[in-house]
């Protein structure tokens, strides 16, 4: 049981580290905003681009 829990915690930690690293890395110049029209057809909720687009819309 214990190794399982430790392993899952480690995996979550790995995800958090990679997420933070990815967020810290700036997108190349001129590409910070991705064309919203291109991904309009997809219904994926987990998509981070869609979330940021919605947040911008709400603001």
């Amino acid at each position, binding site marked *: 049981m214990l190794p399982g829990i430790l392993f*899952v915690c480690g995996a*979550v930690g790995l*995800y*958090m580290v990679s*997420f*933070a690293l990815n967020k810290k890395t700036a997108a190349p110049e001129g590409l910070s905003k991705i064309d919203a029209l291109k991904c309009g057809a997809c*219904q*994926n*909720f*987990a998509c981070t681009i869609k979330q940021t687009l919605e947040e911008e819309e709400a603001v």
Partner: protein
Amino acid sequence: MAANVAKKTAKKTPGQLANFTKGFIKENPVFVFLLGLCPALAVTSTLETSLGMGLLVVFVLVLSNIVVSLIKNFIPKEVKIPSYIVIISTFVTMVGLLTEAYAENLFESLGIFIPLIVVNCLILGRAESFASKNNVVSSAIDGLGMALGFTFALMLIGVSREFLSTGAIAYGEYLPLGVSGSIFNFDTHLFNMAVFGGPAGGFIVIGVILAILQAIDLNKKKKAEIARQKMIEEKKRLALERKRKKELESAGGQA
């Protein structure tokens, strides 16, 4: 279209009954939002496997919605998605082990699609868009309604495919019901189109169902448009009459 529907429901804040029933037709995850099409195509070759898959999704979605809405205030925004993934995959693992223990045939026929419930957009989507913003009771009801709507869609597809491919609806084969047999035994060549049991049939059946729903929708819109036009004409006519009356009156006054 999806955004419009979401906005409308957010404005109205419907009661619990509407919250429960919206998943069946109006916001059906499969037919309206095209979510979870992978299982909707893959496990619907018979009615029983569709029902089994639907029940697993009911279990996972209700429990994950409850847990997500319970802990929504304690999770920082950055780790939202990974924590949802952990919660959902915990329940999926549980449900997989339970199925393996109590319904082995179902476990074998669903196979790889049991772990794949984790990446079903429906579950992550409800956690993200509903459970993380609402209280426990309405999240549970929303999860139940949405999952039952998903089950309903799967069963509709499953019943059409099984009937078209075998001419009968079998029961007790995958689910541990205790009895087994089949109903509607049409033993004719007309009802033995094996292609509907295979991969191609899945796409075609869902395509036909979506086309029927789209036709109904279009018909409704057309009728509403005709009614609106009539109303506008009626208003114009009334306005014109009033104008004429006034003119007549003023003409009469001058005379």
